[in-house]
């Protein structure tokens, strides 16, 4: 690699945001060479996004602060360049694929940089076609952003930064809002783009396993604004750094460790499909997967929600397309259920129907045996709480305590009861200490907890959580999940997760309800779902690395995944 030309060079680089007390980046020394594909790994707050923003010029252009040391992009000092100059060399795909969609159509969005560059329309059109073909969106040039899926929007964003002079591409958490299958498509696409045209690619992620779906040349691990490792994926997987710095280990690596295999003897560790297992390790794995894990099945109460043959469409009439078709399932008290399916499969609609915001065109939804048609949204709200994905969309009041009390006050409960219930809820959610804090002063994960608390105050039986862990690193993810599991285990709340995240579904739910193209295609244990090829394809899921591992050692994937889940839960209970 040393014969190559360096394109990004950090030298004793420090950065201090103007609005923060402490510097965010310390002593960064990093050189990235032409044509390299680098993964920057780190938990939230590790400074990985700040590092990327230094390269693309948002720092110091949009985010002011103090820079010391040197950062050269293509041999030019970035502080001497404008963001416009940098924007012709560094393309950035931001995390939020919806908010960065500037144009009113796919074609327009791809052309945006060219428009700003004053390129005549006649030259622009063939370029737009070329870039859109490169990402496979050439048939959608006239499509509107509102009709595209998250994955498609991301492809458009990618096409928008493929200009000829761009030799560096930065992807800021490209997987954050994608379903598992679209995530693999994106990683594949990034890989292709990196191979064609000798571009340098920098991927920022905290989801190691998904990011490694295609090989990377180097992994930079960051923590608290410093680079703590600059190595290969293989070396990183062998060490203990991942656990130490709050990065989730790939499932197959955990399985190998649980089985007692010595991973230092295994070749090709960064890819489960090429990893070489010795007979001894295979034996260990088989023994591990075939041993009996001992765990109590959850004790379930009576039925709380029953969705009976529900059909729904937003437009009435004969030619209307059904958003949900003949969906039936039931939920028992104390269960934890994952509602899975790709974007547009009807997950959110189903939740809206259960909450009474929309009403089924046919079929009945029973809540504790009562037809929910007779209940108002507010009445249902006392039985079923719905926590939205984005806490900013839910928080109304400035002070945490007021937010939690809001629903109780609206119910016109007596003052002492409001205070009592709010206090109990705040204690349950471990927010009591912060009850008088302004909502703006707390972290995203804590805000999420505030929204759960504001729902919990109404003492609902069932809590529906829409993508509770989206965009969270492993530490915050565990924080949120442990809290929700506590609500389930200690307070007997029924939990329904609407999620893309298969890790979450595997480890924290008893059953998966899978929707695809308006229909319910599976309602069974998570491990059966994850070993059913047909369901995986139809629901845009992907096989976990355990599946690949199981195939390798010739045992049934279903059994393998089941055992892993049970074992993992047992280990976590012990912890």
């Amino acid at each position, binding site marked *: 690699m040393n014969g190559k030309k360096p394109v990004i060079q950090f030298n004793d680089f420090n950065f201090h945001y103007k609005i923060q007390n402490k510097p965010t980046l310390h002593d960064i020394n990093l050189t990235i060479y032409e044509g390299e594909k680098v993964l920057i790994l780190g938990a939230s707050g590790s400074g990985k996004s700040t590092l990327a923003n230094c390269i693309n*010029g948002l720092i110091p252009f*949009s985010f002011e602060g103090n820079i010391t040391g040197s950062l050269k992009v293509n041999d030019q000092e970035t502080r001497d360049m404008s963001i416009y100059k940098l924007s012709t060399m560094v393309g950035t795909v931001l995390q939020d694929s919806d908010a960065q969609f500037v144009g009113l159509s796919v074609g327009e969005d791809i052309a945006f940089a060219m428009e700003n560059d004053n390129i005549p329309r006649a030259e622009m059109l063939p370029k737009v076609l070329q870039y859109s073909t490169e990402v496979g969106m050439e048939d959608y040039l006239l499509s509107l952003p509102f009709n595209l899926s998250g994955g498609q929007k991301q492809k458009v964003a990618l096409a928008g930064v493929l200009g000829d002079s761009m030799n560096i591409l930065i992807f800021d958490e490209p997987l954050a809002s994608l379903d598992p299958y679209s995530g693999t498509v994106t990683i594949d696409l990034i890989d292709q783009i990196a191979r064609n045209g000798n571009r340098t690619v920098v991927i920022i992620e905290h989801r190691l396993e998904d990011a490694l779906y295609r090989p990377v040349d180097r992994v930079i691990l960051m923590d608290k604004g410093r680079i703590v490792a600059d190595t290969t994926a293989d070396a990183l997987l062998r060490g203990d750094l991942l656990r130490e710095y709050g990065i989730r280990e790939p499932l197959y690596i955990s399985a190998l460790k649980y089985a007692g295999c010595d991973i230092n003897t295994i070749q090709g560790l960064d890819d489960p499909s090429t990893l070489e297992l010795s007979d001894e390790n295979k034996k260990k794995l088989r023994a591990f997967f075939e041993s009996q894990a001992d765990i109590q099945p959850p004790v379930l109460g009576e039925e709380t929600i029953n969705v009976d043959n529900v059909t729904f469409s937003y437009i009435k009439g004969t030619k209307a397309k059904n958003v949900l078709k003949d969906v039936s399932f039931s939920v028992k008290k104390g269960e934890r259920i994952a509602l899975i399916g790709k974007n547009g499969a009807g997950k959110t609609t189903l939740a809206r129907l259960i909450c009474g915001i929309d009403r089924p065109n046919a079929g009945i939804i029973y809540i504790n045996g009562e037809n929910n048609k007779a209940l*108002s949204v507010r009445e249902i*709200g006392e039985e079923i709480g719905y926590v939205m994905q984005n806490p900013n969309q839910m*928080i109304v009041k400035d002070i945490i305590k007021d937010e939690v009390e809001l629903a109780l006050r609206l119910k016109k409960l007596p003052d002492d009861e409001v205070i009592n219930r709010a206090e109990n809820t705040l204690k349950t959610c471990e927010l009591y200490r912060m009850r008088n804090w302004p909502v703006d002063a707390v972290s995203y994960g804590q805000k999420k907890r505030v929204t759960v608390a504001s729902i919990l105050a109404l003492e609902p039986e069932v809590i529906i959580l829409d993508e509770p862990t989206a965009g969270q690193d492993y530490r915050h993810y565990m924080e949120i999940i442990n809290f929700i599991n506590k609500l389930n285990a200690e307070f007997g709340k029924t939990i329904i997760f609407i999620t893309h995240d298969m890790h979450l579904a595997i480890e924290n739910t008893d059953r998966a309800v899978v929707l695809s193209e308006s229909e319910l295609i599976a309602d069974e244990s998570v491990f059966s779902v994850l070993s059913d090829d047909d369901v995986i394809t139809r629901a845009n899921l992907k096989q976990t690395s355990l599946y690949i591992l199981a195939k390798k050692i010739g045992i049934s994937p279903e059994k393998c995944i089941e055992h892993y889940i049970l074992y993992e839960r047992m280990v976590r209970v012990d912890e």
Partner: protein
Amino acid sequence: MNNRLLINYSPGSTPIHKLNGATKVFGFLIITVYIIMTFDVRVMLPMLILCSIGIVSMKPNWKPILLILSFLFVMAGVVGSLMIILIRPTSGYTHTGGETILIQWTNHFFISKELIWYVSAMFFKRICSLSTAILFILAITPSELAAGFNKLGMPYKICTVISLAFRTIPDIARDYIDIKNSLMMRGVELDSRKASLGKRLKQTVFILSPLIMTSFGRIGTIANAMDLRGFSKHKQRTWYSERDPTAADWVARAIILLVAAFCVYYIVYIRIMNPPPFSYWTPWGYWNG
């Protein structure tokens, strides 16, 4: 999403849709001047016919159009006319110069032939303005609008902001609905059957704070995304959505120029140099006094 609020997001395929953005904006401006300059039904009528043909030729979704027209009919046609008749029945005389009383209740409440003509002509003018607006909204996409205004000399930053606003309307509408739903589940009663209008208006305030928070978040991201792709790098920019003018554009522009010439003639020669004594022409004519 297309046509749901009349706004076109993707270009249609009829001859008018295919015109270039600058032609459309230019045409709209001239037709607007045309409608504003006159109260003469004889002058307005041909334009209304042209606009109607234009609207029909675009094969629009009639539902919202009829809704708007019926709203106009009730508000301007029925309520507006009644107001004039009740409050100032002498308007007929002031604007047309004659007074042929048809029905008289008291000195202050009467209906004259001229009053009826006046309120009808007034209503007619409103229909004309609205048809022009509908024609324009149907014909243009927000991106073409931005490109068109920029071609006619408006700074491109302002134009881009206009098109961005249209880009975000559906998102904000969706946020609004999501927030409203989550609040309803927490006991904020926004159901029209269960809470009074006043109460609902008060409760709506709850929606604003999260809506503003999420919208600010969006603005921050989009501003960064635009900077990262070189927005405002140069004094000029080009437009992907600006079609090159075709033969049809030149024909349309020629027609618009003719209309513009007529406007100049009408304003200068008729309205300024030889103003009629009364602004409203009537078939039985008091114009010559």
